[in-house]
């Protein structure tokens, strides 16, 4: 064929994680995310309300237990707001990573039938969770005002914290969705790890309640979600609450949780990118 020296079209190299057109990738991920989000409460009478109920119910139960039974939240200013913000942000992280585990298998039908950048699959899971978060944040805002928190200039930092959690979730999401195809027991393992993360992050409690300062430090340094929750409380709810750098004793140490986020992101992408060409065959 090369003997005739005719020009050739573009080379088809098979599937990859990113695969060329970034715009199309975003369009695809967004379309899938919107449809998926619609599907979650399509046809139910309560519709979106049910989606909102999940964090609110959890919040309600925990609130009653920890303020009426075990007087846990008594010394904490705006405890309801702290609790709800923690639950909503944790739910976002759990939503992204928990659904990402089986995402590739859930989209098997598409992966085996159409060529598209494979990264679309975990990305659409992330987008769906972002829509949910946006709606849940409305409920958070209502409660935050109801508990008497005043709007503050520091609120502008909130998007930064949200992006931080999204980026932190993206790494494990890519890693889990790529590896689940081969290791099916990642699903129960990850469910357990998410539970550990729930109790290992200042959601029910606030960081100052941890008895020793070295343990406080360790949690904030090793758990990026804890770092961001501490920061969320300080910027969104109570400016007198300790900052992440107050807890660890110096802003430069925050490079450690940042590094964890970046390492997970790079590792997640590297693994996903490596698995992407053959993911359709392994299913």
């Amino acid at each position: 064929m090369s003997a005739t020296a005719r020009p050739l079209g573009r080379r088809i190299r098979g599937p990859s994680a990113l695969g060329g057109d970034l715009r199309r990738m975003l369009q695809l991920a967004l379309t899938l995310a919107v449809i998926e989000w619609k599907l979650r409460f399509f046809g139910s009478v309560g519709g979106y309300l049910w989606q909102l109920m999940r964090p609110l119910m959890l919040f309600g139960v925990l609130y009653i237990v920890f303020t009426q039974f075990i007087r846990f939240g008594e010394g904490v200013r705006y405890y309801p707001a702290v609790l709800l913000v923690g639950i909503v942000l944790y739910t976002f992280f759990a939503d992204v990573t928990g659904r990402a585990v089986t995402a590739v298998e859930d989209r098997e039908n598409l992966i085996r039938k159409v060529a598209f950048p494979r990264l679309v699959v975990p990305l659409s899971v992330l987008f769906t969770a972002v829509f949910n978060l946006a709606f849940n944040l409305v409920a958070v805002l209502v409660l935050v005002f109801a508990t008497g928190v005043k709007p503050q200039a520091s609120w502008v930092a909130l998007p930064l914290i949200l992006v931080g959690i999204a980026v932190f979730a993206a790494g494990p999401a890519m890693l889990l969705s790529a590896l689940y195809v081969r290791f099916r027991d990642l699903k129960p393992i990850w469910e357990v790890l998410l539970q550990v993360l729930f109790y290992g992050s200042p959601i029910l409690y606030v960081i100052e309640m941890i008895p020793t300062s070295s343990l406080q430090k360790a949690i904030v340094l090793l758990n990026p979600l804890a770092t961001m929750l501490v920061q969320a409380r300080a910027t969104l709810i109570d400016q007198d609450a300790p900052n992440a750098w107050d807890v660890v004793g110096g802003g430069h140490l925050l490079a450690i949780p940042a590094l964890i986020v970046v390492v997970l992101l790079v590792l997640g992408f590297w693994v996903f990118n490596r698995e992407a060409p053959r993911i359709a065959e392994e299913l």
Partner: protein
Amino acid sequence: MSQRAAPAAVVDGVSKSFRLPQEKVHTLKERAMHPFRRSRYEPLEALRDVSFAVERGEFFGIVGRNGSGKSTLLKCLAGIYRTDAGEIYLDGRLSTFIELGVGFNPDLAARDNVLINGVMLGLSPQQARERYEAVMDFAELHQFEHLKLKNYSSGMHVRLAFSVMVQVEADILLVDEVLAVGDAAFQQKCFEVFSRLREEGRTMLFVTHDMEAVRRFCHRALLLDRGEVVSVGKPSEVASAYIDLNFSSEGAATTRPEERLGDGSAELLEAWWEDESGERLPQLRQGESCSFCARIRFHREVSHPIVSVVVENESRHPLMATSTEWAGIESGRFGPGEEASFSVRFENAFAPGRIYASPWVSHAGAHGIMDRWPQMATAVVTGPHISGALVDLPHEVRLDSGERTLAGTAPR
């Protein structure tokens, strides 16, 4: 230096194998329990050094038996599988139809399904929304647009999916067996669309079992067997190569003795097909003389038994039936232990494909059956041309324009 445009598709030395794990180690636990057990893989070579080129505007058929690698080839072209070796080049916008309605969700109404399917097939979300009306017009489903897809009949489902496909503007279409679905009216619509696409100069690579469709639409075709290219060329040649391949390598006989019945007065011992020279053959050439033969042994004394045979094709259509009675043979008396040979000789005008002979022996008059053996002997008819008819009777064709008369005969 050639200034010609690039071919629409070039496949150069493509190989692809799959690793089939012999024991699938699926969980970390299993791996932890047996750390030294290597997971062994059995390679399956789905494509071996496949090369061909498809010109712009060409309709190109890819045919082959199940497991011949044709769908794998299409998926490599589509970019769904990565090839192990070789290169694939495509020139133009590509759209892939491995399945109708990719991404359809039964819980959504038409609009969302059109959107998601259109986007999966390469439209932008905006384009997909703009073309929604056109899709529904073509599908004639406007009155059902608010119905969830799961409440659609399968016919409506297919119509919707096909209508989206038609809306996708691609220069190169990769189509896998899409025509195998739908009723006759829908298939007609498909054919019309294909003809239109053909006239518009689109390029299509299309995987199918349907030789008739290949002959009707394709400029050229490719025959794959066990991952290798057997032939590339004119559809009629490839189609007949396909028939040869499809039947020659199969076992000679697929008899069904379990359906045998009769009172046991006579027994069909053996049956076979033979050619003019009397040689028993699994293949018979169209247009040549051939015979069906059977040997019978009688176990009781009978008078004037009748031996019959019906010849059927693959889809169980009877092509020919005859008997000693019809041929005016007074068969006379047979005692226990006596044998007889039965044969039917004729010019083979059957269409290429597999044929089955089902003989039976019956009593005179009341026709009680002594022995019947459905599909006792089988053979494959080979021929140069697939007409799609059940039989290809020798005939003459004339075209007379007043000044000149053109004539030809077929089969040739």
